[in-house]
């Protein structure tokens, strides 16, 4: 398979250049080539007019090229300073010069107003701050070319705004910035130029000022995409899920989840908005049983207290987790096996205690077909699918349970506009079939587009609740930042 097929890309000095494209279009691959992580089979890279060839990131770094990879390249066990200087540490008499390192990092933090503490362990930082550590790493290396692969995928609107502020300032210092993003509005807002890839080729390029959202979306997918679609409200019925006083103690007295109660009705999508790290993981753990918590959860009249994950699933819970690669699937196993999980103790896959091969196969094929999972077949290893297709497969598996209650976390993180449309439509259809859906998302636009009711989670508490009509970008965004309730 060709990830990149004769892609030409020219980026000027002091410019923010956006790169867009569907999942698996080859954006990350292209960036990796620029950063020396992969070698191109053909073609050349020129920097400041001179042809260069990076055999390794070390050479790219030396040439002033830095990259923030999709998903972070940080060490949780190390401090901010250690993460920043990693690989080009200041030394004194052969040993690490901690003082000099801290001084330099502090200075950079102050100059770029990044508001980080050099001594903090990265493990303890929220996602937004981690992103800044990544930027700090590039600044420390005095990168003239900054490559950022989907840096905003995990950020909230205010965080994104701050990041863009930093990026604009850097561009003003004559640095070159290459930005990969799936988010049309962001690209339109921040970039000077844009290039769109489709199937490993360039399908559109030009000054951002000349582009429209619809035009870019069409260039990415090859078809018209309805971008501003807000799905009509559902018709909520009985309460399917009720959570009462869920509490998860924290490390230093401050609970990670603090007395959270909520209900979800059949035929209703309840959106939980909030900046990542405000208790979303704990809320999901409390409901699914992956985490031991205080409080209780009642599902269709059945108290789930003390029940195992499996028993909760049997009681009518389906779950699309946040981390599709490690939690939601087994990347080395085949699609067939991945899709059988959860069905492997039930009819028709099992009869008289034995798994039946044909039924397992049919089950996989049915999901692949229904949910339009693009793969070479049920035998393909899950890990070889593109992110969007993995997500569709996981959705297919969980929706097929036809469970009364569905918990969905970050359903479209890192997924392209085409796949987002598909996934959103599925969720609404699922709701309209009478199921209850709890949607946890850091993507405000997603919350607003899908939710019949919006709850805002801030520092472990529900600080605000909006009906579909009340919920708008401004009000919810304010509550997410702790400005309401």
């Amino acid at each position, binding site marked *: 398979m060709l990830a990149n097929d004769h892609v030409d890309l020219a980026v000027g000095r002091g410019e923010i250049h956006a790169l867009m494209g569907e999942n698996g279009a080859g954006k990350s691959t292209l960036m990796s080539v620029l950063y020396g992580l992969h070698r191109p089979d053909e073609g050349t890279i020129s920097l400041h007019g001179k042809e260069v060839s990076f055999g390794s990131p070390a050479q790219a770094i030396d040439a002033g090229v830095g990259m923030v990879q999709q998903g972070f390249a940080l060490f949780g066990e190390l401090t901010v300073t250690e993460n920043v200087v990693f690989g080009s540490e200041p030394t004194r008499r052969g040993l690490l010069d901690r003082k000099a390192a801290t001084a330099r990092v502090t200075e950079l933090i102050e100059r770029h107003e990044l508001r980080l503490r050099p001594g903090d362990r990265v493990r303890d930082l929220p996602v937004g701050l981690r992103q800044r550590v990544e930027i700090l790493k590039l600044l420390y290396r005095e990168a003239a070319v900054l490559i950022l692969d989907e840096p905003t995928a995990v950020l909230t609107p205010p965080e994104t705004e701050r990041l863009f502020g930093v990026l604009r300032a850097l561009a003003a210092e004559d640095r070159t910035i290459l930005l990969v993003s799936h988010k049309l509005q962001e690209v339109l807002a921040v970039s000077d130029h844009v290039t769109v890839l489709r199937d490993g080729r360039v399908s559109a390029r030009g000054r951002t000022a000349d582009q429209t959202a619809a035009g870019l979306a069409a260039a990415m997918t090859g078809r018209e995409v309805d971008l501003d679609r807000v799905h009509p409200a559902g018709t909520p019925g009985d309460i399917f899920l009720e959570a009462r006083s869920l509490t998860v103690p924290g490390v230093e007295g401050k609970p990670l989840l603090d007395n959270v109660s909520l209900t979800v009705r059949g035929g209703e999508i309840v959106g939980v908005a909030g900046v990542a790290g405000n208790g979303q993981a704990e809320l999901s753990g409390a409901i*699914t049983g992956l985490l031991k918590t205080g409080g209780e959860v009642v599902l269709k009249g059945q108290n789930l207290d003390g029940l195992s*994950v499996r028993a*909760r699933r049997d009681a009518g819970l389906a779950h699309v987790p946040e*981390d599709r690669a490690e939690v939601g699937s087994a990347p080395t196993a085949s699609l067939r096996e991945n899709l059988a999980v959860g069905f*492997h103790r039930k009819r028709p896959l099992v009869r008289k205690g034995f798994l039946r091969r044909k039924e397992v196969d049919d089950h996989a094929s049915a999901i692949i077909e229904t949910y339009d999972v693009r793969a070479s077949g049920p035998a393909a*290893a899950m*890990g*070889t699918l593109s992110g969007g297709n993995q997500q569709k497969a996981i959705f297919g598996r969980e929706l097929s349970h036809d469970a009364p209650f569905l918990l969905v976390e970050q359903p479209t993180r890192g997924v392209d506009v085409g796949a987002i449309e598909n996934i959103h439509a599925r969720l609404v259809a699922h709701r309209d079939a009478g199921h209850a859906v709890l949607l946890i998302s850091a993507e405000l636009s997603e919350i607003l587009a899908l939710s019949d009711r919006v709850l805002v989670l801030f520092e472990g508490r529900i600080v605000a609740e909006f009906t579909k009509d009340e919920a708008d970008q401004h009000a919810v965004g304010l509550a997410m930042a702790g400005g309401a309730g």
Partner: protein
Amino acid sequence: MTRVRLIAVPVAAALVLGAILLLATGTDPLAAYGAIVSGAFGPDGLGDTLAYAVPVAGMATALAIPLRAGMVNLGGEGQLVLGAISALAVGLYVPGPGPVKVVLALLAGTLAGAAYAALAAVCENRLGVPLLISTLLLSYPAMSLAGYLVRFPLKDAGSSLPQSPQLPEGARLPEIDGVTTGIFLVVAVIAVYAVIDARTPAGFETKVTGWAPRFATYAGIDRPKLTLRLLAASGGTAGLVGAIAVLGFPYRFIDGALITPQYTWIGLLAALLAGASPLGTLLAAVFFAALTSGGFAMERATQVPRELTAVLQAVLIIFLAATSGVFKRKAGRA
């Protein structure tokens, strides 16, 4: 096609390396290899190979069971020995007709091994000691305990050795041509393992856990419970192998007799090499058994040091492990 290359290349490489070693010591490699093959599979040697293959394949299967879920049981020796000594105690002291004794002894061995391995699982589940370490550490006290029992309460009064009395005539597993009938039990265990692995929800959950532990937890597979069950199954199989060993010739427990031949370690290697797949594990185990018994035959016939086969075996494993990595990587990219 790749499957064949996967095995053939390392085997050829190991054989060539062995040939070089043989030439260096001034021996005709063909004669030495011939002696190994005829010693392992010839009319005289096949019995020896099978006799060796029973404990090795048994232990390999025992260790493969948890390995399928990515759990390494390093305590096979302790479980094996406890199974053996428990079976012996039952065989010696429980009254009743012979066949009943045999069945009870086999059960006792299985239970003892299962319980002891389950203890290691509890150490991981409740006390946070990783399985790898808890199984390893628990193994030594078990061997010491068996050593103590066979020297004091269970010792052979007439003998000066650390060994138990022989089991009474009726309470023994008969032999066919020098091979214990326990071989049928081992084959049955392997068959059951193969069926569970390939065709049942329990086997499927085991494999899912092996592929991606967090995925398994998310999907509702209870890891602590699975650990306990798999370890019990593993230790039980190891204990059964121990029981089969004492119920066979010389019909007694001799301190160290189950440890020095390295059944456990060779079994573990077989399981690791085959990725714990039931049939692959069996094949690898039989192959190693053949190499070992062939090695002794070679030494008797040609005076080439039998350690050569140990070297060959290890070199082969190293080549296999290394190349499987290469193939794994290639497959991942394709």
